[in-house]
């Protein structure tokens, strides 16, 4: 192994390992701040530079939280399975970190001194792998296991219920998630993340096509469920299961769970950005390659902000409703979307009229299907009129 190759590997991996955990800290701050402002509170605003009264908008809060977590007592319940109790948070973190390498973050611009190193970087980066998308889904599947390990090993009924819910939920939502990604793979004809991103150069983002839009919405909803975000945060449902599968975790193990959860949020938002939002595509990228990283992170963060916003607005679904939503609504709709995408692909879209017609027809079919499925999958609920007695 030549020295250049080692440098290339380091440049390809170290920024990933540095950026995302620090972005995790920033995101916890962002989430707390945004939720606080949604709820008309101030959020963290005291913790800044230590020993002074400089608040820095509370940016020191994640560091303070981290230090607190490190020093907290690590409690393992009596009768818990100590080994699996320890392994679960680690197992939650590893796949989340692994899938980060499939995000098309091209760091070759860092190697300004040597063209060959830049070429090597491009060669070793994970997204250059031909089966990147499949690999992504394969590895995120491991997350389920860690959740169940945590739920089982804690020897707590709430944890067990949380673990049970998590398995059912994650397995169910994996299917619409994959099926909505299949549409893009079908269109591009490749599983390579880089090629998918390149296919959308020049504002040809897939979200601007009718099937792409539908697939993006399905993908986003399923991604919320995959990462246990509100309104699908049933495994950790605070109001009935206290904290779900990590009820019995404290200290740094708890922090690892958190870290894993946030990093898989980044990963799945990153995949959404690659599949539907053009990856690192954006104005000025052609001139300055580093802008691609900035644009990509900006897209991830806007998706994460929408997640936070949803979390601040919506209550939680119930278990049966959640499963019905996945199997009776999202799954048929995503299968139908594949068909629609296939037809739309073969209709020539030379002029504006044809484009509009394709839009109208595809969205019409999808909407009608959604409406019908909606009627099938649940009892009719609607606001009621109330009477008054004098």
């Amino acid at each position, binding site marked *: 192994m030549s020295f250049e190759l080692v440098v290339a590997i380091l440049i390809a991996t170290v920024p990933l390992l540095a950026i995302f955990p620090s972005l995790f800290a920033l995101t916890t701050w962002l989430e707390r701040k945004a939720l606080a402002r949604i709820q008309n509170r101030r959020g963290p605003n005291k913790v800044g530079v230590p020993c002074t009264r400089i608040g820095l908008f509370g940016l020191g809060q994640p560091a303070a939280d981290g230090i607190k977590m490190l020093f907290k007592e690590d409690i393992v319940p009596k009768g818990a399975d100590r080994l699996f109790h320890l392994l679960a948070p680690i197992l939650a973190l590893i796949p989340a970190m692994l899938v980060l390498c499939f995000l098309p973050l091209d760091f070759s611009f860092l190697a300004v001194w040597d063209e060959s190193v830049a070429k090597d970087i491009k060669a070793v980066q994970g997204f250059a792998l031909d089966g990147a998308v499949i690999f992504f889904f394969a590895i995120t599947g491991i997350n389920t296991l860690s959740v169940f390990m945590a739920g089982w090993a804690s020897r707590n009924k709430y944890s067990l219920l949380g673990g049970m819910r998590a398995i059912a939920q994650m397995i169910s939502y994996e299917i619409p998630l994959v099926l909505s990604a299949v549409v893009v793979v079908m269109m591009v004809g490749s599983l390579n993340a880089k090629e998918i991103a390149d296919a959308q150069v020049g504002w040809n983002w897939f979200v601007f096509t009718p099937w792409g839009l539908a697939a993006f919405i399905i993908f986003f909803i399923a991604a919320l469920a995959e990462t246990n975000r509100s309104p699908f945060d049933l495994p950790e449902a605070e109001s009935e299961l206290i904290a779900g599968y990590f009820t019995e975790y404290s200290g740094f193990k708890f922090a690892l769970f958190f870290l894993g959860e946030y990093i898989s949020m980044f990963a799945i938002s990153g995949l959404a950005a690659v599949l539907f939002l053009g990856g690192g595509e954006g104005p000025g990228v052609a001139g300055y390659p580093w802008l691609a990283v900035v644009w990509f992170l900006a897209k991830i963060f806007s998706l994460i902000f929408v997640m936070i916003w949803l979390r601040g607005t919506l209550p939680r679904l119930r278990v049966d409703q959640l499963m019905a939503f996945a199997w009776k609504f999202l799954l048929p709709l995503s299968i139908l979307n594949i068909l629609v995408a296939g037809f739309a692909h073969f209709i020539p879209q030379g002029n504006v009229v044809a484009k509009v017609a394709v839009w109208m027809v595809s969205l019409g079919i999808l909407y009608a299907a959604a409406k019908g*499925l*909606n009627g099938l999958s649940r009892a009719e609920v609607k606001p009621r009129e109330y009477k008054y007695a004098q």
Partner: protein
Amino acid sequence: MSFLGGGIFSGMAVTLRNFVGSYFDPDRLTTNDYSWRPEGQLPQSAGEYPREEGEQLSDTTTVTNYSRNFPMLLHDGGDNPMDAIRCVACQICERECPPQCIYIEKDYDENGKFIKRPAVFDIDISVCMGCQICVEVCPFDSIVMNSQFELSTPNRFDGLLLHRGDLLKSNDYYHRIHPEEAKARDQRMAVEKAAKEAKKKAAAEAAKKKAEEKARAEAEAKAQEETGDKEEEAQ
């Protein structure tokens, strides 16, 4: 289940409006930030928190003019507050206090004669619930509610037992923390005092009148007696 409906989006519009609004409209904010405001913008100079160890309870820590916290004893000025203390140790408040947190002992001079003031007046604020019943039952307007809230102490037993010295506050202080209430109370006390004095005066006059009448009657009787005697003598 589906998202096919405007309900979720209208809800998201509401939260977005609140998100943006909280930066521009301070009325929206639920919480008030007291401790980081520059000096002078506080409601009324709230004590620095946390206090230095051993520091006395800060004196004027008032949230609003109306809030009440624990009772205090009033005195009417003077260098030696014990001379002008209003409390006469009648122990009505001690009896009426619902959680029974007041502890009074009467004061006696060296001859064992009761002087109208408390020797011991303790309030256990770990028990006191700030209900203001003692203020209502006091016939001498000597106990009123304080609004000092910085009472944290490292000693939970003796530190929370307020003694006479801690409780004694001047009437000026009362005017400073509860201006409206103090003014009304002073007016009422003045009216009552005037009425009392008028009554006293009337009583004194009545007594005087009675005495005069008595004297006159006696004089008349005496005169009659004398005349009788004279008549007897004459006979």
